[in-house]
């Protein structure tokens, strides 16, 4: 008996030491990544020491994003071929290109001290939030060191109070996708300049049928931007809050809300909001199945218009700029957004990473055939490249796309405050009450202004 229990104790002790060994090796990894205050210095040194030992002068840049490895790696290989001595490792955050889940995964990786140099951010809200947390390295010195004239190089200006924390990769601007087959059937032209009133007339004319198979003129997705469409087409001051000043009790917001109300409740030309939220409708199936004839969307949908595996195209898609609020208003403007690439502040290879990101945001974008914020991008080449990739290029209306791309103007990039998420939630919830018939327009504007002011005051 006694002997048996001794054996047992020994066994348990062995097991425990095994477990603790696993634990300590994990700690070792975390330290290498530079986790925490005291571990950071020693960890960083040992990591760079490892690199020097394995690859001589080799620099390893580690880049993370939600894009699929298959789409990014060819570009990285192109860079490595041009720049011997640099290896770019890619960390694929999610396997379904979901940028929201990708960012959550990225936050966890950063929190656990993973060794990452470059990160991609899916939009200006994510950019401002993480720059506000001081996660991103300021790039001003690097830009000056290179002698780069930022304004001549990129369309979108990423500076926050004069400091650049990221470079713009893709450009995202907004426009209207129109089902050209339905336009032709209704005898309507593809507009090159129009107002929201005309947009509503189009929507009404394109609405047909009744019941579950009804075709609606348009569909508004659940994103906050669909509640301030009248702000998105402004050349400047196009945020809910600009430089700490509220922009809610304004004609632009009233236009935005009224046009939603008119389309859904008066003309019945928009998919009811109740259906959209309760059925979690998404814009791609709604548009590609022909349930809605027009959608307001952004540049990522240009190639989708030629069909994708999941949503094949079965009709011609035309492109029109965002409508303006009133006749005579500047037209063709759209809020600019896009993917941004930044350097993590704790990165050990800032200069090398910067060089890589400069290449990635210019020539890399060309290699990847992305719609980019690089001013030297070749529009015609981009369009023909898109058409070469999609399964049904004949469904992209080239004339209207070329016209749109050559005449679209990007509004000044509005860097939202770090609490933009709170603002959008508060504003959306008041706007929802309006569209669901819980309160009238004036109450909505007044309540939203009061709620947003509270958030601004709390974050002063």
């Amino acid at each position, binding site marked *: 008996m006694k002997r048996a229990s001794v054996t047992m104790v020994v066994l348990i002790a062995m097991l425990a030491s095994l477990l603790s060994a696993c634990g300590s090796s994990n700690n070792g990894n975390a330290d290498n990544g530079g986790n925490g205050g005291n571990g950071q210095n020693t960890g960083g040194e040992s990591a760079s020491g490892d690199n020097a030992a394995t690859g001589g002068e080799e620099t390893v840049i580690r880049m993370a994003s939600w894009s699929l490895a298959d789409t990014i790696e060819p570009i990285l290989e192109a860079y490595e071929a041009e720049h011997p001595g640099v290896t770019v490792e890619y960390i694929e955050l999610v396997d379904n290109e979901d940028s929201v889940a990708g960012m959550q995964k990225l936050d966890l990786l950063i929190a656990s001290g993973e060794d990452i140099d470059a990160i991609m951010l899916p939009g200006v809200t994510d950019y401002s939030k993480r720059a506000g947390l001081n996660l991103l390295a300021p790039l001003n010195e690097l830009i000056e060191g290179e002698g780069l004239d930022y304004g001549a190089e990129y369309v979108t200006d990423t500076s926050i109070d004069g400091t650049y924390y990221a470079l713009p990769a893709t450009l995202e601007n907004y426009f209207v996708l129109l089902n050209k087959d339905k336009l032709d059937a209704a005898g309507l032209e593809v507009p090159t300049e129009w107002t929201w009133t005309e947009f509503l007339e189009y929507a009404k004319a394109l609405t047909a049928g009744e019941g579950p198979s009804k075709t609606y003129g348009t569909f508004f997705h659940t994103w906050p931007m669909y509640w301030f469409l009248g702000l998105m087409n402004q050349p400047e001051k196009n945020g809910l809050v600009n430089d700490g000043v509220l922009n809610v009790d304004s004609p632009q917001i009233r236009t935005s809300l009224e046009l939603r109300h008119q389309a859904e409740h008066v003309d019945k030309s928009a998919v009811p909001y*109740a259906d959209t939220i309760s059925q979690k409708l998404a814009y791609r199936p709604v548009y590609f199945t022909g349930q809605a004839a027009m959608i307001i969307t952004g540049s990522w949908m240009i190639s989708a218009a030629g069909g994708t595996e999941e949503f094949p195209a079965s009709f011609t898609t035309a492109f029109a700029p965002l409508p303006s609020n009133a006749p005579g208003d500047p037209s063709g403007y759209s809020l600019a957004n896009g993917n941004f690439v930044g350097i993590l502040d704790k990165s050990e290879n800032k200069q090398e990473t910067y060089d890589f990101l400069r290449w990635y945001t210019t020539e890399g974008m060309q290699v990847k055939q992305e719609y980019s914020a690089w001013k030297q991008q070749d529009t015609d080449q981009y369009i023909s490249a898109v058409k070469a990739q999609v399964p049904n290029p004949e469904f992209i209306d080239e004339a209207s796309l070329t016209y749109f791309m050559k005449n679209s103007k990007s509004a000044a990039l509005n860097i939202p405050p770090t609490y933009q*998420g709170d603002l959008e939630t508060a504003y959306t919830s008041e706007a929802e009450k309006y569209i*669901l018939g819980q309160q009238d327009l004036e109450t909505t504007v007044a309540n939203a202004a009061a709620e947003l002011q509270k958030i601004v005051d709390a974050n002063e």
Partner: protein
Amino acid sequence: MIASYNPYEAEVADIQAIDKQEAVMLRRSGRARRRREMLAGYLFTGPMLVGVLIFTLVPMLLSFGLSLTDWSFVTGIETIRFDGFGNFARLFATDAFANSLVHNLVLLLSVPVGMTLALALAVVITTRVYTPGLFKVIFFMPHISSIVAVAVVWQVLFHPSYGPVNSMLMALGIAEPPKWLADPSYALTSVLMLMVWIDMGVALIIYIAGLKNIPADLYEAAEIDGATSWKKFKHITFPLLTPTTFFLLITGLIGNFKSFALIKVLTDGGPVKSTTVIAYDMYTEGFVNLRTGYASSMAVVLFAVILLITLIQWIGQRKWVNY
């Protein structure tokens, strides 16, 4: 009295001595055995205890600590800043948190409602139904189905214009039926109904088990006395099931307070924040808005509320639970 002489005195003394010795040995070996048993017990429960310690207790204490700080978990430990009770002050100053708490309290209704239905069904299934096993499975089905699948099915059933529920209501002559999940005044009720439907199966199974434990002779005696079915239920079934009811009530209320998945997939807290609950707010603040300290303070308040409700129930049980 004759002084008796016991010829076996020596032997008896011997035996007594041996007994004493044995008793000592026995006691000693008993203590040793108990120690061995305790050791074995700890060895068996050890992995679990270590797990609870590392994955539950330590994080719990940490979140208490974090609730007093202004910190985002992505920025590394060096940016942590002590903030006293600032998070709690902000928490109670916002309407959003109070709203979520109220929604939580409203959703608690689903527990007693579900239990009442489950008890009624349990009695019917055990006494008056052929193939009780089949019915057990049917009612347990929602609980073992994926929440996502359940949510999608109900989304379709609750479709505001063409869903079966509203089609039926319209056929019955209701011109403007509620829009259910898309209607700020009905969304919470819809979630509540779904919760009843999902959680009823568990209560049902446990009630059926409880019913089987009630001795049949009590019912026979009552029948001889001429008791009606209702009287039998009121004076035998219900009192003898009170420990079961108590267990279901405590676990049900705690589980209900923590409900998150259903809200996340069904409504995302909307429309117009009409279905937000504390657990959902915690998720958005902690993992979407990246405010770890603030989210932790919500966790602490949730913990306090659940603790309070559970304590009240423990104190209250003396009045109505029969063991």
